[in-house]
């Protein structure tokens, strides 16, 4: 082998830059020898790495980053960890997206809106529904039994004149059963969904005749005002899911390498706890992936109008039971943190590469 040619400092620096593709710990252990090999293979007189060399080194570095320890179950463990953290990432992403939504309108604003929608001042009751994490809170105003004539086209025009973007009116004929006489009467429902300045309103007017002979219909109005879904929710959800997948895979690989060099009696309980954590989180994980994928599928399909586009649950609701975090999910997350803590706390035996045998041993 050619020894002693003048080494190009430029080439050396360029190779070293390529080696940044490798994880730091690996670079510290193997960087110098890889650099030697690259320099020796290059021979004298070269100034820059060839495209093939650059590709090979960068690909090698990336492979090293995503590499898992040898072992039958390692791939499965990495996949499950990736899916678990991916679901969690999608949920966190969706919650972050929703946290940028408009604050819900005040009761006074909802009152004005109700009057506008009904076509005149009306007595109404306002209710607030508790919502998970304080996101997507909605205010409901109900107007019971008004007999003034109400027309969907006029309501639509009034809303549009006030700057609302109004979806086409949906009209359905249903039936209602009266409480006092227990008879079934026909009922017409008009539904209007409209948006303005980050607020969505969902208006339903149900009209019926209490007695078939009544001249005027009686109407029951229901107006729900809620923050509109910010455009960022879906992209941040998907980005969170991808980041979670990546982080889960890397975490499993790292933890795997650490635990590989510990004794079985240290490793076994950590593995058991990790499985328990993933099982506790499994229902939420599956639901979060389902919701994220469904949201992506809906966005890819034809645009939804009216009531169909409202109230699709976001990925974070997978970790919510009622309005507070699900206790299974909380237990699973806490256990997960303990598992990571334990695997950092155990002292692995030093890597084999540092225990260099004597030559010819």
């Amino acid at each position, binding site marked *: 082998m050619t020894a002693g040619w003048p080494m190009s400092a430029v080439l050396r620096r360029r190779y070293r830059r390529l080696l940044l593709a490798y994880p730091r710990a690996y670079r510290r252990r193997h960087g110098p020898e890889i650099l*030697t090999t*690259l320099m020796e293979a290059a021979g004298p007189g070269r100034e820059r790495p060839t495209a093939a060399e650059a590709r090979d080194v960068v*690909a090698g570095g990336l492979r090293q980053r995503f590499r898992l320890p*040898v072992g039958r179950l390692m791939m499965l463990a990495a996949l499950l960890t990736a899916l678990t953290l991916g679901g969690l990432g999608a949920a966190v992403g969706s919650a972050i997206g929703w946290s940028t939504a408009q604050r819900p309108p005040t009761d006074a604003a909802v009152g004005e809106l109700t009057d506008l929608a009904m076509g005149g001042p009306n007595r109404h009751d306002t209710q607030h529904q508790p919502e998970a994490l304080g996101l997507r809170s909605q205010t409901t105003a109900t107007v019971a039994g008004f007999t003034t004539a109400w027309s969907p086209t006029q309501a639509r025009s009034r809303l549009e004149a006030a700057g609302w973007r109004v979806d086409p009116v949906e009209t359905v004929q249903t039936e209602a059963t009266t409480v006092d006489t227990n008879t079934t009467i026909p009922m017409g429902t008009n539904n209007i969904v409209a948006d303005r300045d980050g607020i969505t309103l969902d208006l339903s007017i149900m009209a019926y005749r209490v007695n078939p002979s009544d001249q005027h219909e009686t109407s029951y109005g229901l107006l729900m005002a809620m923050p509109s879904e910010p455009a960022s929710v879906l992209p941040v959800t998907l980005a969170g899911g991808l980041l979670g997948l990546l982080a889960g895979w890397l975490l499993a690989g790292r933890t795997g390498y650490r635990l590989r060099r510990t004794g079985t009696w240290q490793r076994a309980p950590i593995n058991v706890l990790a499985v328990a954590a993933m099982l506790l989180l499994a229902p939420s994980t599956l639901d979060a992936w389902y919701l994220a994928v469904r949201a992506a599928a809906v966005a890819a399909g034809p645009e939804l109008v009216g009531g169909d586009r409202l109230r699709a649950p976001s990925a974070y609701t997978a970790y919510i039971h009622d309005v507070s975090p699900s206790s299974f999910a909380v237990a699973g997350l806490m256990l997960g943190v303990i598992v990571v803590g334990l695997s950092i706390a155990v002292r692995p035996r030093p890597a084999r590469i540092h225990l260099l045998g004597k030559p010819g041993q």
Partner: protein
Amino acid sequence: MTAMREPTFLILTALAAGSRHGYGLIQEVSALSGGDVVLGAGTLYGALDRLVEQDLIIVDRDEAVDGRLRRYYRLTDQGAGALATEADRLQRNASAAVNRLRRRAQPGSALAFGGVTA
């Protein structure tokens, strides 16, 4: 053990006769394969890392040459065993293939009893 990938097989073969360092291995693998397999450094060190992890090879020694670090690797007993097993397997498959091809070359002798000679 499942079938070995070709670079792995060639690296183990190159180390069978004695310890070698990175560039030496690249040259030896290229020579062994008649120039068919030219390993890049990224591919080589990925394979070496795996082999060390599987205890098939081990770091033999470090040498400093002109301020450069050369690390030599050598085969472990386990690695020699794995290489021998793989070589047997390949030989068996290769001779089976050669035998079948000979029969094909003589259409009339498909049912010949020991009539085929080298």
